């Protein structure tokens, strides 16, 4: 049976290039990067080279990159840090969107409990924030605008450059959670007026447990961890050089191949979308064009997503769903509800996220597997029966 991994928005396979870049620091070059002798200094050079490579891929300066444990940490640090900084100036208003990752939403919720005012911008049916809404929401006491670069469930790419321009014009700091975007779309933090940006290595074939926060020079972000000079004294702790080297290698590889990967992935994605939309009563969630090249998110009426993805797993296909049953909570995905899907349609969503090593054969295999599973689930679904009756088909 064919095995197809189509959950690259959850995590990706470590690239061979990244692994190769990591190995020396897991074996011979085990020195502490703070030590002055040779293997310490070699490790130190590894840290600096990795930082420079990450910075260069994003149009940042080397000392504007702070390594973290991953995207969630970077989001927490950026938002709580700016909040603390701005509260001193009496600015206690944060603008975000309704469909951010929980690393952002739960963080602003915490700040709300501490007296911050939060504005959640709508994302409309297409899953895209309007820069104009950002502009209109900015007040005299706005401390931060935090809008994700691309959504993790429906893959919609936000007008980051426009939002950046609005924020710059109004003199408000702009943070973007770019965990799904880095390595997948062309980003230049300077040109796009991004002040802070979160990223995570394992979303672009780097190792897990490492990410970074880009923080523009001049923003005096409070320290995250006290106790050492690492990360310019802002995040203490002996550097995981192997992870940084892996992240840098993976990002460089992804950035170098961006144009060809995007072309390949977009073709595969569109083939998959078109193939699956052949199924009756299905819909694509999120804008079709302003969308990550590997993201497919489709709802099938009358079926429940967890059953769908477990039957797909039995066919060798790894995917994910926004149903309540898979979210571990009792409500379906907040992202799908934010774009206006009724609960019962949100429960029937399927996310397939591709990477450049997926093949056309794999896409066709998925397209061949899904209809019979949908058919099987619908044939035993009282909800589908009801829908059919309402439409006069029964």
């Amino acid at each position, binding site marked *: 049976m064919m095995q197809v991994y189509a959950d690259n928005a959850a995590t990706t396979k470590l690239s061979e290039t990244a692994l190769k870049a990591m190995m020396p620091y897991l074996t011979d070059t085990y020195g502490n990067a703070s030590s002055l002798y040779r293997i310490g200094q070699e490790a130190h050079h590894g840290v600096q080279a990795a930082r420079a490579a990450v910075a260069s891929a994003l149009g940042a300066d080397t000392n504007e990159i702070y390594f973290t444990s991953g995207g969630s940490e970077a989001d927490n640090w950026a938002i709580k840090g700016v909040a603390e900084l701005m509260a001193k100036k009496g600015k206690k208003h944060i603008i975000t969107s309704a469909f951010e990752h929980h690393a952002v939403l739960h963080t602003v919720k915490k700040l709300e409990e501490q007296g911050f005012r939060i504005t959640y911008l709508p994302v409309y049916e297409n899953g895209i924030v309007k820069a104009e809404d950002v502009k209109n929401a900015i007040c005299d006491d706005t401390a931060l605008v935090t809008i994700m670069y691309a959504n993790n469930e429906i893959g919609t790419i936000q007008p980051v450059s426009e939002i950046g321009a609005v924020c710059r014009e109004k003199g408000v700091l702009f943070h973007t959670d770019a965990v799904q975007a880095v390595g997948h779309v062309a980003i230049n933090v300077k040109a796009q007026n991004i002040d802070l940006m979160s990223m995570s290595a394992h979303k672009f074939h780097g190792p897990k447990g490492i990410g970074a926060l880009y923080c523009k020079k001049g923003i005096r972000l409070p320290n995250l961890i006290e106790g050492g000079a690492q990360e310019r004294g802002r995040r203490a702790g002996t550097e995981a050089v192997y992870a940084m080297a892996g992240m840098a290698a993976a990002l460089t590889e992804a950035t170098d191949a961006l144009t060809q990967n995007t072309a390949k992935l977009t073709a595969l994605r569109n083939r998959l979308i078109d193939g699956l939309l052949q199924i009756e009563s299905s819909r694509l969630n999120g804008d079709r064009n302003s969308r990550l090249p590997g993201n497919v998110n489709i709802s099938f009426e009358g079926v429940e997503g*967890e059953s769908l993805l477990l039957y797909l797993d039995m066919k060798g296909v790894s995917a994910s769903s926004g149903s309540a049953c*898979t979210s571990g909570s009792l409500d379906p995905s907040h992202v799908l509800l934010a774009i206006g899907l009724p609960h019962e349609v949100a429960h029937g969503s399927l996310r397939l996220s591709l990477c450049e090593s997926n093949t056309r054969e794999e896409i066709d295999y998925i397209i061949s597997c899904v209809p019979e599973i949908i058919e099987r689930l619908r044939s035993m679904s*009282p909800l589908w029966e009801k829908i059919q009756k309402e439409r006069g088909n029964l």
Partner: protein
Amino acid sequence: MEYSEKVMEHFAKPHNVGKLEDADGIGEVGNAKCGDIMKMYIKVNDGIITDVKFNTYGCASAIATSSMATDMIKGKPVSEALKLTNKAVVEALDGLPAVKIHCSVLAEEAIKAAVKDYYDKNGIAYDPALFKEDCCHYDHHHAE
């Protein structure tokens, strides 16, 4: 969250899937908003459930509990089917993840609803306390 082998077995090849056109009782519980609906059909002869089928919209555990619960009442007297508890279904499936226990409650209620329908249709007297509407057994059933 992990499903037992038994759950996966019943999910992969559920027993008693379908409808009974000449059902003596039909019970439907749950709602679309919450992501699960169970509909059970029973055929009764001389107080014995001679056949039972189900249709379920829901996650793997909803399908597996429907399959197991219908197995457990097939061929049993109606009075015995009424005594089937969600706990017994969970045990028969070698356990369910905590967040999925409500599926087993639905299965128990679907059977009771089918029996109540059978009693009502046939003018059989019963103690209404047997079918208390326990609307708050799982708190995610939003008011609609």
